[in-house]
């Protein structure tokens, strides 16, 4: 069973309809034992739906989903026994104590009392919640609740770990800690996590599945995807000067493919699209000053996820893939 190349998650032609609404269309992917895979997509792209189907919460409309070789429909209980799952809203009983909650979850996963006791000791160490074992869950901070949720997911040493947006809604310091924790956990688990935060994927995952409007639009390592996406650069400049002149000047520069301006009152904000490798930031400031205009701000704009999807779904990216 412990052969390295074993496929732990197998998804074939997965489609999910809610009435007439298509949530996921013909999704195909697989995750091998020990892999950390990120499911990246904007809100409403079908990430949660996919995960709920994988975990056996809802059945697929079409397609086959297998967890550790067990079909989630025909062998639902065996498949579910292999999974540790942290849904997006961390499922906690607010009026239970941490230890009580963990032992309940352990019992639900068919662990015996001794095993539960030992594993709780190990798990609370791993997620550092040792001081809060007797605390009511409702009194914990969001970050600690997240940890309790993670502890619950890894308690029964599942073969497959599925985390839905594990860092959403917690403060930045705790996000860093939680990511560290997930990375730690990922060392000895097969892990599928969803997120809409791009840096999170590059920080954690070996492979990324990008899903948009229920379709799998790209599948690659974070490095390769970054490479493909770095086709263009975006710079934002705030200039106090005659709009028409500035616009035509900017357009005349080498490597610039587009300029959009918005009036901000005192100045005008220009968003410039440039081909990559033009190192625009370095020379732009001095060129603007040479023209005698006031430069009030200059920054490079990182691409938002929405833009990345636009780019991924646009035709030239399709060509590039082929």
């Amino acid at each position, binding site marked *: 069973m412990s052969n390295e190349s074993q496929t732990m998650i197998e998804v074939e032609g997965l489609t999910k309809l809610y009435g007439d609404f298509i949530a996921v269309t013909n999704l195909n992917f697989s995750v091998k034992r020990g892999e950390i895979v990120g499911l990246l997509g904007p809100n409403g792209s079908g990430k949660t739906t996919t995960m*709920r189907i994988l975990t056996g919460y*809802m059945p697929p409309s079409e397609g086959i989903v297998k967890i550790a070789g067990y079909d989630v429909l025909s062998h639902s209980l065996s498949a*579910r026994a292999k999974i540790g799952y942290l*849904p997006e809203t961390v499922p906690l009983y607010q009026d239970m104590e941490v230890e009580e909650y963990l032992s309940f979850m352990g019992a639900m996963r068919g662990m015996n009392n001794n095993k539960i006791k030992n594993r709780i000791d190990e798990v609370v160490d791993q997620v550092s919640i040792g001081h809060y074992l007797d605390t009511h869950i409702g009194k914990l901070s969001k970050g600690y609740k997240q940890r309790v949720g993670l502890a*619950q997911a890894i308690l029964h040493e599942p073969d497959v770990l599925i985390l839905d947006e594990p860092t959403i809604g917690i403060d930045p310091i705790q996000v860093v800690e939680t990511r560290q924790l997930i990375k730690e956990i990922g060392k000895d688990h097969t892990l599928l996590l969803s997120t809409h935060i791009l840096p999170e994927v590059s920080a954690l995952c070996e492979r990324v599945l990008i899903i948009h409007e229920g379709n799998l639009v790209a599948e690659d390592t974070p490095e390769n995807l970054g490479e493909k996406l770095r086709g263009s650069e975006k710079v934002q400049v705030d200039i106090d000067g005659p709009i028409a002149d500035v616009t035509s000047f900017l357009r005349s520069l080498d490597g610039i493919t587009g300029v959009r301006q918005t009036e901000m009152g005192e100045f005008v904000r220009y968003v410039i699209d440039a081909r990559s490798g033009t190192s625009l930031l370095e020379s732009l400031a001095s060129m603007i000053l040479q023209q005698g205009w006031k430069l009030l701000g200059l920054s490079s704009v990182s691409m938002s996820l929405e833009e990345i999807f636009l780019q991924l779904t646009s035709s030239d990216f399709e060509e590039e893939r082929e």
Partner: protein
Amino acid sequence: MRNTFIIAKKESKAYFSSPMAYVIGAVFLALTGYMFVSSVSNPFPEATIRGWVVTSTFIFVLWSPVLTMRLLAEEQKLGTLELLMTSPVKDYEVVIGKYLATLLILIGTLFPTIWYVILLYWFGNPDLWPLLTSYLGLILFGGATLAIGLLASSLTSNQVLAAVMSFGLLLLLTLTNKAALVTVGLSATILEEISLTAHFDDFARGIVDIGNVTYYLSVIGIFVFSAIRSLESRRWR
């Protein structure tokens, strides 16, 4: 089966560690205690518990919606239902576990009323059989009201809505035998037969009618089964 007991244990533990258990227990004892005292303090007192037993059925109609409203509605609200339904546990084990827990709570709340029975034996010479059938009746009646509450709780994530739905249905089912008095023929029979209260009186008199037992068991079966189905159907939405 094991999973059913794990859930039943968790639910009843949660209930008995909340202040609600003791407030409700105290109110229940105060009301039944008052009814008991007034039934045995008339000039020709009978050594029975009928006085408070009939009142208890009315208390159950009020109490069961409150007791059952959170069972499944809260799980849906908190998202913990997703966890239960993705655990290697069958849906019916979850529902039956929760139902057993409420039944256990009901029996636990009834337990202190044994004191009234002890008092009867102390000062009088009651018949044992009507005492036993009264308790059997109370458990069956209470069990039926709890099953109705359970179904209501499975239908929504809003606890108040669940309580209102089950209270409405319970009130309706306790009043149909009153409506039966003003009608005749088949409709009167039907209204009489579906009434929760009409089937109870025999138990308080010491009569175990198989029809009455079947009635309550059917209500319990139908509503618990519907609650299981309702939970399963969440997967298909």
